[in-house]
Structures are given as structure tokens and as C-alpha cells.
């Protein structure tokens, strides 16, 4: 029987970390990180976990220590947010290129400036080219479930890549909502023990982690990383199928909501998807064929699966909670539009930047987006492919 609880997103992830009980957690214990490392260190202080907690002096050190621990053969996790993730930048690439399956809980918050602590995806979206897997959640339940699946994906022999489990800052991380937890033994059985193939502390094998590679082999290393990223798609689906058996909850690369026969489709990531679902229910009751494709997995980017899912749409609005300053829109918009072009999709598509610096989005604004899609189907999208939602006049 599932355990019914109410928790914030941060509490849910901390609980998942407690249940997984990895070997090492280096983390910066205060802002810009959230209360998450503090919650985990409480579990450790109370003897409920035996993870080695390393309170480091910066986020750069947190990731560096995580790389050291993971290289040594330890199952390693950390948590961060916003400027903390930005401060890890240099070493994020080291973790990925050394194929270290570190799991990191990311609470998505804005990067300065203006100085702002609220929800935005610019932190993890900025790290999208670092070689980390990225999975996003709509709510606390998904954040918890995604973290339980993280190591199974990251440690898989066909993948061996670090993974970010992302949730929306404050909206999910600090909002309390109902959740169903799995029992400890079920989690333990599902996640399993970590037995790395190669690691520094392996007695009967000498190996080196992070060696110098110039023109001779450097490029092959990158290609191998890209290949592992491709392989992750299948692994993510396999792990989700197994997770469904223990939890009853279904996950994929994306979630379609009223998507099958949808003429007007919004594509989005994170907590806004719950708000979109409520808008869709209203519109459907009025006969409008509105639908949602919620992106769960952003790295790897499931281009074929995404375009396949929206190929029946007449008009598509792709929503980004991050600005790329490319004059073309946000990261999801740019990548999905490129995929739509290669998939020969004929639908009109617009890119909407929303929710920057925590700007709220409500059901009425989402209804307006669908109304705009209807209009675009008739009159075309010319000149307004990229716009802001909810901007002050």
C-alpha cells in the first residue's frame, strides 16, 4: 500500500534521498541551494541515513567533491539551485565527460539579474549542453518519482551519465501538496545496489579518471558521450515501465494530455502543465480540441517522439520559462522547431516565453494562448513567432 502524505517538493526529494541512502552527498548547505541539503543532513544526524555528508564551501566544490566520490566508486548525489548550479558550470562538464552517474536535485530558479530568487528554468536550461541527462517534473509527486528512477537510468551500462532531476522553484519546491510515497523496501529493491564496472578504488584494476586527450582521441570521447545520450532514451522508457510495476504510475519521455485528437497544442515543461490541464478541461467542455504535450525528458532530446506526438496539430505554442537572447525564443522553442522542420511538420508554431523571475501564469492566460492558436490556424503566425506572455504594458 502506498503511503499517503503531504510534502513540499523539497521534502519529497529529501525523502527519496533518504530512502535511496547513497554513499556520499557533498553539498553547499545554504543559499543559493535550497533547504534540501539541510533536510538530508537532518536525516543523517538522526541516524536515518548513513550517507557521508560533506558540507563544502561552495557549489564548485560540491560538484568537484561529487566527481571525486563518484570516480572512487561511490553512489553520489548532490542538490543545488540557481546561482549554485551556475557556479558548478566548469565541473558539470567534467562529471559528464568522465561518465560519472551522479544524481543531482535541481530546484529551478532564476539567475541574476535583477536579483531574484523565484522560479525560472534558465539555470538548468543554461546547462543543457553540459552532457547531463535532464528530467523535469510537474509536481512534487513527479519530482519524487523521477528521483527514484534517476540512478537506474544514470548508472545503466549503456548510459553512465550524470542526471539532473529538476523541479520548479518555490511553486513546487516550497509548496505543500498531497503525495504518495513508496515503502522503503520497495524503493531499495527498485533502485538496487551500485556495482560500477571501473572505479579508482577497485583493488584488482588500475585505472585513471579524467586524463588528458588532445586531438588524438578527444573527439571520440565526445562522440561516445553523444552516443550514450542517445541510448538513454530507451533506458529511460525501460526504467519507467519497471517503475510503473512498483508504483502504478506511468511515465514516458513526454506526457500527452488530451493530445491524440488535439488541433491546438501547447508544449511546456514543469508546473505550468497542471495549469494548462485545467484550461484544457474548460476548453474541451466548450468543444475546443485543445491538448498538451508535457516534456518530461529534455536531455536526451527526444526529437522524433516529440514531433510524432504533435504531428496532428494545426497550431502549436511552445512555452519556455527561460530566455536565450537568440532573438528566436527559448531553448525548448528553438530545439523543437528545428525538430519539427526535420520531421516535415506543417503546423504553424509559435514560441512563448513566460514566467520569468517567477511571474505567475494562470488558467485565463493559458486560455488566451489557445485562442491565439485558433487565430493563427486561420491567419498564420507571421511576425509573432516569438513573444512574451503576461508582460506589463
Amino acid at each position: 500500500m502506498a503511503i499517503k502524505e503531504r510534502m513540499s517538493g523539497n521534502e519529497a526529494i529529501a525523502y527519496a534521498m533518504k530512502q535511496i541512502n547513497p554513499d556520499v552527498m557533498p553539498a553547499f548547505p545554504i543559499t543559493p541551494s535550497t533547504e534540501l541539503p539541510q533536510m538530508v543532513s537532518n536525516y543523517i544526524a538522526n541516524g536515518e541515513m548513513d550517507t557521508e555528508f560533506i558540507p563544502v564551501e561552495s557549489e564548485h566544490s560540491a560538484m568537484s567533491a561529487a566527481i571525486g566520490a563518484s570516480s572512487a566508486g561511490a553512489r553520489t548525489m548532490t542538490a543545488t539551485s540557481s546561482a549554485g548550479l551556475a557556479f558548478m558550470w566548469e565541473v558539470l562538464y567534467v562529471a559528464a565527460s568522465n561518465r560519472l552517474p551522479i544524481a543531482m536535485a535541481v530546484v529551478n530558479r532564476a539567475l541574476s539579474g535583477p536579483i531574484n530568487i523565484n522560479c525560472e528554468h534558465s539555470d538548468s536550461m543554461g546547462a543543457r549542453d553540459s552532457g547531463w541527462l535532464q528530467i523535469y517534473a510537474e509536481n512534487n509527486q513527479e519530482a519524487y518519482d523521477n528521483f527514484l528512477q534517476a540512478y537506474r537510468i544514470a548508472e545503466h551500462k549503456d548510459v553512465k551519465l550524470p542526471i539532473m532531476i529538476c523541479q520548479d522553484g518555490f511553486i513546487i519546491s516550497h509548496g505543500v501538496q498531497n503525495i504518495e510515497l513508496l515503502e522503503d523496501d520497495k524503493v531499495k529493491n527498485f533502485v538496487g545496489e551500485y556495482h560500477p564496472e571501473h572505479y579508482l578504488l577497485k583493488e584488482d584494476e588500475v585505472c585513471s579518471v579524467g586524463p588528458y586527450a588532445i586531438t588524438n582521441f578527444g573527439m571520440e570521447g565526445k562522440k561516445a558521450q553523444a552516443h550514450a545520450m542517445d541510448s538513454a532514451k530507451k533506458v529511460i522508457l525501460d526504467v519507467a515501465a519497471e517503475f510503473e510495476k512498483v508504483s502504478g504510475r506511468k511515465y514516458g519521455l513526454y506526457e500527452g494530455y488530451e493530445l491524440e485528437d488535439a488541433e491546438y497544442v501547447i508544449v511546456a515543461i514543469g508546473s505550468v502543465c497542471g495549469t494548462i490541464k485545467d484550461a484544457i478541461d474548460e476548453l474541451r467542455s466548450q468543444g475546443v480540441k485543445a491538448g498538451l504535450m508535457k516534456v518530461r525528458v529534455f536531455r536526451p532530446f527526444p526529437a522524433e517522439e516529440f514531433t510524432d506526438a504533435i504531428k496532428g496539430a494545426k497550431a502549436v505554442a511552445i512555452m519556455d520559462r527561460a530566455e536565450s537572447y537568440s532573438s528566436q525564443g527559448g531553448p525548448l522553442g528553438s530545439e523543437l522547431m528545428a525538430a519539427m522542420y526535420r520531421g516535415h511538420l506543417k503546423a504553424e508554431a509559435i514560441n512563448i516565453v513566460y514566467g520569468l523571475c517567477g511571474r505567475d501564469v494562470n488558467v485565463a492566460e493559458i486560455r488566451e494562448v489557445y485562442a491565439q492558436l485558433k487565430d493563427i490556424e486561420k491567419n498564420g503566425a507571421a511576425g509573432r513567432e516569438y513573444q512574451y506572455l503576461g508582460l506589463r504594458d
Partner: protein
Amino acid sequence: MANLTEIRWHGRGGQGAKTAALLLADVAFSTGKFVQGFPEYGPERMGAPITAYDRISDHDIRVHSNIYEPDYVVVVDETLLSSVDVTNGLKEEGAILVNTAKDKSEIIPLLNGYKGRVFTIDARHVCMETLGKYFPNTPMLAAIVKVSNVLDQDVFLKEMEESLKHKFARKPEVLEGNMKALRLALEEVH
């Protein structure tokens, strides 16, 4: 979502409005409801106006926006009435609850013409009688439960006792004072 109740809290940083909103979500959860309790973070400093929200429903709650048309509004600090439009969007069939020692007739003119029901409670008086210290969130929590009728009062008291017992296992005197504050608040709100 016909049975969805939405509550907006207005307070000042440090008064516990956020904690009260989360506590209400907590206690509603323990009676089997679906809940959302969340703060809107502005400047993080003592005394700055803050807003917190509760959604309580018999069904799963998916929407993740702030609450613009609340059924109920709780004002933890009456000095906010002059600077924050606390009745903005408040449904007329709903109600507003204000923490004040003043008479209701003095508060109503400050509510921008709000036509719904108005309730007041002197949370400072309740706190001083029962806790000896001013923690307005405890009486405000009980008062909004009574005003909104979102939970049965006896069930509310029972659940609060359980939760406080757990929280203050080593300080039974805190439990007693808080329970007294909750009961007195239920009597003194009108």
C-alpha cells in the same frame, strides 16, 4: 472542481502567515482532503507584506497559479489594510477575516466597498490570555476554519492536538497553551 475552497493570507514577514497556511493545508490533508499550501515569496525580511495561499478540495488539484478570486481572505496584520488591496478578487459569497481589536464597523470602511461577510478576531487578546506571547497564526488558523467551515471544528481540534503533540513532544506546556488558544479563538471570532 465545485467543492474547491481557495484561501488567501495576507501578513507581514515574521508573523507566521506562511506557517499558518501550511498548517491549514496539513490539517486538511489529515482529514482526507487534497490540498495545496504555498507562499508567494517577495522580499524576505521581517515586516514586509507577504501572501500565502491554500487550496482545499475533494479532488486532485493540478493548477499551479496564485489565487486571484479567493473564497476567503485572512488578514493577519490590520496595518496592511491601508497599503494592500486585500479584498481584490474576493468572492462576495465568501468572507474576509481581519485580526484587530477594533470594532467591525471601523474595519468595514477600509475594505474598498467589499459587500460580503466580514469577521474580526483580536488575536493578540487570545494569545495573551492563553500563550502569554503574541503568535497570531494560531488563533487566525482556528478562526478561518470556523469562518470558512472548510473543516468540522471538532475534527480540526482533534487533528491539531495530534499534530502539536507530535511537534512538541518534549514541551507539553506548549501543547496546552496552543489548544487553549485554538478553542478561545473559535469562541472569539465574529
